[in-house]
């Protein structure tokens, strides 16, 4: 018993001198909840990775713009973007699809064209895909037409490799769609040519759409605000939180001032949200969730992390980049 008593004293003393059994990192900061409201940071360059961070798609002569992003079954991300070659005619863009398992790795499914303009109303131009995931199928809404932009609809049952287009556009006078559904209500966010705000259209089935009478968000006109002059290229998501309550989340490009002739506009990414799809609010403070230059966001929220694709000038061409939160 003497040994027991002595041993306990020795053990306690040694333990107090620093022989612990747990790690010494500052805890309590891991896996915090998020709804993807940022702030986002561009993927930092890593000389040891094969990727030219933060760029997902970039080229010296080709423009990559207006991405879309969905989760891939089995892990990873499926991405879409608009690809336009420098050859005439202007606007002869095509929608490409690829997939990657890791943001720091090259796509394990390299990007390939999946949707081209072959309808009269598309006027040789398809762009700005927005993907809605349903059970066993995907719905794509996209921009078509140059002189009179409209939204088209296509459907895929093979994970987005091939698409069957609807016979006619589903929404006129609209471009750059972002679409989501809560299972009952469908909402499409879009812009209109010549209008600086973001509009909504609503649908019960994702086929027949009724646009609102007025935009839900407009430029705020505030001096030095990143969204003073114009809003554009929205993306929309229906996010269900751990409590079971959901809300509509909207990311968009905000423009402080119109660019000089020949320059590309310098968008920054803004954020707004709504519980009911009717009343929309923007965060206080007037700060973007991703600093300029970055526009046309596409966002996916996965537990405590969010990933954003955006388009931005890289050199002389537009490219698609990656940003993350946290």
């Amino acid at each position, binding site marked *: 018993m003497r040994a027991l008593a002595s041993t306990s004293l020795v053990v*306690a003393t040694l333990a*107090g001198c620093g022989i612990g*059994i747990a790690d010494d990192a500052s805890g*309590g900061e891991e896996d915090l909840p*998020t709804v993807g409201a940022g702030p986002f940071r561009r993927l930092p360059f890593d000389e040891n990775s094969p990727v030219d961070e933060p760029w997902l798609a970039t080229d010296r002569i080709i423009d990559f713009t207006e991405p879309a992003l969905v989760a891939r079954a089995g892990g990873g991300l499926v991405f879409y973007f608009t690809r336009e070659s420098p050859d005439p005619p202007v606007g002869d863009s095509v929608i490409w699809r690829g997939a990657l398992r890791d943001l720091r790795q090259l796509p394990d499914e390299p990007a390939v064209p999946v949707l081209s303009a072959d309808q009269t109303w598309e006027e040789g131009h398809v762009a700005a895909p927005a993907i809605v995931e349903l059970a066993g199928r995907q719905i794509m809404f996209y921009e078509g037409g140059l002189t009179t932009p409209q939204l088209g609809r296509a459907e895929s049952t093979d994970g987005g490799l091939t698409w069957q287009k609807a016979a006619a556009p589903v929404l006129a006078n609209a471009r750059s769609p972002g679409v989501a559904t809560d299972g009952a209500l469908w909402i499409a966010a879009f812009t209109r040519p010549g209008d600086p705000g973001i509009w909504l259209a609503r649908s019960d089935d994702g086929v027949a759409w009724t646009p609102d009478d007025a935009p839900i968000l407009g430029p705020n006109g505030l001096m030095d605000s990143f969204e003073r002059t114009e809003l554009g290229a929205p993306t929309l998501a229906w996010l269900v939180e751990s409590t079971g309550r959901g*809300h*509509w989340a909207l990311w968009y490009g905000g423009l402080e001032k119109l660019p000089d002739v020949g320059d590309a506009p310098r968008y920054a990414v803004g954020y707004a949200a709504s519980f009911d799809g009717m009343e929309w*609010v923007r965060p206080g403070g007037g700060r973007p969730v991703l600093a300029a230059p970055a526009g046309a966001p596409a966002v996916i929220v996965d537990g405590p992390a969010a990933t954003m694709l955006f388009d931005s000038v890289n050199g002389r061409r537009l490219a698609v980049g990656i940003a993350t939160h946290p």
Partner: protein
Amino acid sequence: MVGLTGTARANPVDLFGFGARAQGMGGAMTAATDDAGANYYNPARLAGSDDIRIDVGYQLAQPFLAVDGNSQGVDSSRGLAIGLAMPGKLAGARLAIGAGLYLPDQQITRTRTLPSQQPRWSLYDNRPQRLFLAANLGIALPGNVSFGAGISYMSSTQGDVALQGIVGFPDATTSQLILDMNVDLKTIRYPQVGVSWDVKPWLTVAATYRGGFKLVLDQTFDITGDIGTPGSPPLVDNGFLHLRSVAQDLFQPAQVTAAAHARITPRLAVAFDLAWHRWSVFENPAAQIEIELDIGDFNDLVTIPPQEPLPAPHFHDIATPRLGVEWLARATPRRLWRVRGGYAYEPSPTPEQFGSTNFIDNDKHTFTTGGGLELPGVGDVILRPVSIDISLVATFLPERTHRKLVAVDPIGDYKASGLVLGGSLSSRWRF
């Protein structure tokens, strides 16, 4: 500008108890403590023995706390718990002086600041990561009453950093700056007093008051000087940057406890504590940051937004009941075996986090068990009783839901839940 938040509050002993016997009885020790743990639980109980008592133990608590099912990786709290009680007599009255120390084996104290909106487990973040030190005096009064009082200590730093000279521009490496750093070690003392009355040979009632405190961290950073290339006319003459950060860094609520300890039979004793904690005066610990900048003609290029007012945290006072049972399971001339059990309920002082703050905390149900072995001595060296105590503690934090008022909240709704497992091994020596 990001608001920064200090998150240290109270101390690890408040959270996990002091010593294995106390832990094993659910912390219901205000009237039941009979060892050097009285330095924390009730200094009046120091005067209850004629022996010199030294307690040495090690205790560990490992939180497993999650938000939305994702573990937050909250740090463990572990360290050495030491207590001392030295009896004596003054003018015929029996008294004792004592000291209690909880010495973490990771850091003496931890201070860190987090973004204002960042979710954090308010009572488990920095709170268990600091030293506890108390010195006390207990005295036995006529009528089976004893009284005790003492002081607990806490320290922190407060500092100013000043740089003077030339700030190199455009090549910062040409800067010629003189550093002047002034750091003070600030000490905070807060009182604790206790009274104990042996109403009957089998019944003791007691009460304690433990003072609250808050520690404000006030730090400034100044750069004064010209901006430009050394040897050339400066771009800016006598530019300066002044930054001051003021934050409530540590907080402990005032506590009042009423307690009873009943030795119902020679083998069975029951202890009960009811403690009130004044959390309602807790202030938002986010840093108030003030910035002044003067860079001459370039001032128009910089906009420093005003800091938004900090939202009130709206913590509320809580009452915490604790119940402990101790049973003398087996007694032989050379061995006393005791078994202990306890329960404590600590309601959360934090309201539902529906606004911009995210001070996460839940109600806590703590179940404890433990045992002790008392020997009459150890060989020919220690002739007075020696005790070895062990305890196991499990605190359950049932799931709590936080729903945000605005859809645009960057954190959104979440659920928080958790479990804290801990234990202690102590030895008590009498001389």
